[in-house]
């Protein structure tokens, strides 16, 4: 297969950046999108040019590192998968593919297609954890958990923190990510203890970091590689409301 690639090139965070066009031929339809970029980079190295910088790690859809905005959609045209899981057969032979980095004030570009997603780590640090050791697998059976709650928590915990929700949202809002992280604990007995403080702190950190506000457009849900539901956003909205109206004025 042959492709014309339009790729965002930016030398460093302060450089202006712009699109560059590359021609690529004889690409296997079974090559993954990242393998295609590897081939491009090899070609660029052979030509003595600087290869395209892009984030990647596990290449099996579990790490959430790959983050490319392809033809107007995060993680490209297929749904429910990350860029690394997508194959070139999803594109028409001879087509032009535009590749951009995630665009958000909270995710500044480091170089080319790589963005700094530390903002997500900062939100987690604000409360996305349980403060005490909850034990090991054997201890898990000592606390009965309804199947429904366990499944809901598992669905939320499927979030790999890739940032596609922010990239897809017209407001660059991080609500789907934060709500998944709030939900995975809020529905479980071990997480309920700190639930009120957690949601307040995480939302306030999210606001500080310059993410946009949710307008319930649901592009996040449509683009999430792990198909996380916007019902988690509603749960976070409820949790936050309860937390605001029932928390003591001064925390101990």
């Amino acid at each position, binding site marked *: 297969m042959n492709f014309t690639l339009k790729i965002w090139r930016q030398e460093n965070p302060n450089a202006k950046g712009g699109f560059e066009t590359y021609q690529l031929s004889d690409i296997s339809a079974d090559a993954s999108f990242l393998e295609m970029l590897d081939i491009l980079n090899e070609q660029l190295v052979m030509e003595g040019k600087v290869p395209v910088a892009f984030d990647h790690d596990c290449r099996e859809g579990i790490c959430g590192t790959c983050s490319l905005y392809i033809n107007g959609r995060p993680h490209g045209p297929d749904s429910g998968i990350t860029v690394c899981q997508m194959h070139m057969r999803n594109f028409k032979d001879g087509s032009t593919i535009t590749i951009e980095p995630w665009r958000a004030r909270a995710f500044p570009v480091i170089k080319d297609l790589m963005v700094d997603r530390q903002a997500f780590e900062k939100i987690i640090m604000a409360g996305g954890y349980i403060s005490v050791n909850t034990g090991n697998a054997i201890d898990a059976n000592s606390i009965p958990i309804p199947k429904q709650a366990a499944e809901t928590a598992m669905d939320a915990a499927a979030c790999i923190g890739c940032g596609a929700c922010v990239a897809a949202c017209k407001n660059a809002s991080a609500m789907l990510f934060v709500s998944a992280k709030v939900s995975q604990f809020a529905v479980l007995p071990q997480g309920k203890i700190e639930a009120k403080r957690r949601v307040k702190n995480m939302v306030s950190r999210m606001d500080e970091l310059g993410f946009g506000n949710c307008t319930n457009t*649901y592009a996040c849900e449509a683009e999430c590689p792990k198909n996380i539901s916007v019902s988690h956003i509603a749960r976070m909205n409820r949790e936050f409301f309860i937390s605001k109206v029932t928390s003591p004025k001064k925390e101990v």
Partner: protein
Amino acid sequence: MSKLLHYSSLTKKYIMAIAGFFLMIFLVVHLGINLFILPIAENHIEIFREAVHFMTSNPLVKVMEIFLFAAFIIHILYGVILQLQNWMARPTRYKIEGWSHTSYFSKFMIHTAVIVFIFLVIHIMNFYLVKEGITKAPQGPAMVADNHDFYNMAINLFSNTTYSVLYILLIIVLGFHLNHAFQSAFQSMGWNHSRYTPFIKLLGTIYSIVIPLGFILIPLYFIFLY
């Protein structure tokens, strides 16, 4: 005032939703009265005048009027603040964007909002400010008896076809705004449930069609039948 601006994004959304709910209920009441401009009952003019009299003189309605203006101001103010923050959250735009599957009208809420706001200003000038004696009653074929004679004011306005067509177009835009707004307000409040959300979405679609259609019937009657 500065405290209002520093509420968290979620609190702003609750306030938007609560004000929105209030405005949506107001629209139903407003339409209920307006429909009596049409000859739907034998003494429809008397019923309409009586309703207008009640709405302009009852002390409880007067109190609600303060809430209504507050709801308008808060909804508009927060809408603008949230939108500005949203634009600032993405300083560099994508070259190619908008290919994600989303609720269609949600992408244009600020645009439909601006058009509805223009309509609101015209509407207040034509009726509310006339009642308060600030602006003059609209002139036309009907004699406006006093500044509470909304029936003849409406006849005068709708006997102008340009005004009627404009009114219809603006109400359709309001329908677009309501189409997303209805279910969005429920989601913002956290009222999402696998059992009820599909019903809320359906109800929102019906609401966003029926309410504008009701308002549109009045100018249509004046264009074609009066």
